[in-house]
């Protein structure tokens, strides 16, 4: 059917053109802000792209930045498939990081091939426990999970602050622990800062894609997400799924926390996440929880953040300013989504 193929091609080129235009619009708006601030916008954007995409070191930093947000995006995507909105990746990440840190500080003498898996398990346990609260409350029909996960973010961050300041802080600095022993650090690759967390993230992504597409669990989860009533009447264990899936989401976020302390910071600090939980939520949302979309979006966002670090050095923009470029990108994508949203609602 040539006509249909034609339409597809038209739609595809339309989509590509529109996305390019959207990205250009976001860059233009950001350039405007940079200009108002009195810096050269073309130089800024040129620096940014030359560094992140044109140099090996810059590219490796992009990948490093991508690791936590890729994982936290999955932590949001999994519960979303059964219709649960997990906006608590941030808190789950913090608690996971705290659990993993406990492992690293308590068993410094274990060999790495025991200690690292132990820390991963602890991180997953921490995140899962933190997600169990909203998951259970939702499953028994008491409280909406959106609001509980949101509130538990702040609680999780404060609990980690309490643990660091009261028990774990190093002698020299009250808002971070000591550097972990080498056995508790994730191995890095190619002499860059890219760590094993990348493999964890990609394996999780592949697993997510495979489970959703080819297993009975994936089918049942999509059934619950699509039509809870019908799923329940077809004998799918509804409540069990809600709790378990929420906990899996939490465990993934906890793993992101473990990767942050063990692979990136090499210690636990109060600002361990750098908003990775919230960024993950946005990525997952924009990608419609689709695996490829999550990979692409987290890469794009990582470019933006890494570029921000560079602009701070080259044209002395405050680092936080890069959030404006992130926000503009989100704005243009969000405001395009009306059609997609309608289908969901």
């Amino acid at each position, binding site marked *: 059917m040539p006509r249909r193929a034609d339409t597809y091609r038209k739609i595809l080129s339309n989509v590509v053109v529109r996305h390019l235009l959207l990205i250009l619009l976001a860059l233009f708006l950001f350039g405007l802000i940079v200009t108002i601030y009195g810096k050269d916008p073309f130089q800024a954007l040129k620096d940014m792209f030359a560094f992140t995409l044109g140099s090996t070191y810059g590219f490796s930093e992009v990948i490093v930045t991508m690791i936590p947000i890729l994982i936290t995006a999955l932590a949001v995507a999994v519960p979303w498939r059964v219709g649960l909105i997990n906006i608590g990746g941030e808190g789950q990440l913090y608690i996971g990081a705290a659990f993993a840190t406990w492992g690293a500080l308590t068993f410094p003498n274990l060999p790495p091939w025991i200690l690292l898996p132990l820390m991963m398990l602890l991180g997953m346990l921490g995140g899962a426990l933190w997600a169990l609260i909203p998951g259970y409350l939702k499953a028994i*029909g008491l409280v909406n999970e959106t609001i509980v996960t949101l509130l538990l973010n702040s*609680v999780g961050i404060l609990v980690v602050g309490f643990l660091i300041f009261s028990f774990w802080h190093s002698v020299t600095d009250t808002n971070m622990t000591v550097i972990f022993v080498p056995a508790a650090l994730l191995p890095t690759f190619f002499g860059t800062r890219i760590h094993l967390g990348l493999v964890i993230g990609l394996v999780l992504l592949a697993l997510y894609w495979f489970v959703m597409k080819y297993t009975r669990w994936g089918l049942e989860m999509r059934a619950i997400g699509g039509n809870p009533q019908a799923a329940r009447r077809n004998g799918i264990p509804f409540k069990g799924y809600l709790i378990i899936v929420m906990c899996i989401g939490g465990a993934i976020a906890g793993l992101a926390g473990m990767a942050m302390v063990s692979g990136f910071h090499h210690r636990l600090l109060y600002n361990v996440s750098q908003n990775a939980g919230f960024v993950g939520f946005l990525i997952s949302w924009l990608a419609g929880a689709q695996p490829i979309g999550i990979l692409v979006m987290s890469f794009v966002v990582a470019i933006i953040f890494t570029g921000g670090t560079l602009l701070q050095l080259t044209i002395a923009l405050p680092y936080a300013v890069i959030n404006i470029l992130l926000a503009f990108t989100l*704005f243009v994508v969000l405001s395009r989504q009306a059609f997609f949203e309608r289908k969901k609602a």
Partner: protein
Amino acid sequence: MSLLSILGVLSGAIFAGTSLLYTTLGEVIHQRSGIVDLGLEGLLLVSAATGFAVTSLSGNPYLGVLAATLTGGLFNMVFGYLVISRQANQLASGLAMMFFGFGLSALIGNAYVGARINGLPRILLPGLSDLPILWTSLFKFDILIYLAIPVAFLVWWLLFRTRWGLGLRAVGENTDAAFASGRNPRLIRYQALFFGGLLAGLGAAHLSIAYTMAWGEYMTAGRGFIAVALVIFSRWQPLQAIVGALLFSGAIAFQLVLQSIGVRISGFLLETIPYVVTILVLIAWGGNRKHSTPASLGRIYYGRE
């Protein structure tokens, strides 16, 4: 400990909690019209930075308050464009606004890090000037503190005693029904966001111009999220929001009291109180929908073509 030091703690708590009351009132209005605004954190930062910058430039704190307030309303118009006109998801748009606020406030405030300003003047209520100076110094508040509770009553009056408030609540409960009865849901939601943004902007103004009298990146430290929690805690009622803000102030006051009598308890744990109490309150309601949660909260209005 003496009566005087207890009063001192109370006075400190009032200073700390005022910004939160305004912000909570703003979010009550948003949510009553059916919109969850998670971008409050960003709004507070941008308003606080603008208010501080204007105060620093003009030397007039009242001008700063005005600027911060208007900034709050305008900032929310961007959010409104996304969630009302473009029908984007409210949670995601709110978080995007939060990041926008992080960036914009850093840009605005960058030149004013470490700057000093004349904060909002503190006024003594007439009749209190006969008290000894130690006492009067504790009860000299700025005008925003005096106005906080009257504003809560004003918001209550607007929401529950005016036609506009009726329409606003109708939009929050059932958008289609409100439309059928001749109201314009989009316009009303824009108005709610603007007015709520003004109130949140007032809160931010109090934070940077009267309370800390300094600007620092991320200085709001989660106040936007506390406000969202307190809105639920106060069951979307403006008058109960006063109690909610007191809960927050009380936690801070409690911490100060404990410190002054030598008990060391982590401030981090005390700061979790508003969140934990809100979750417990939610559990206590037991999923009963009759607790005045606006029924259309978070829903997108697609209109009737």
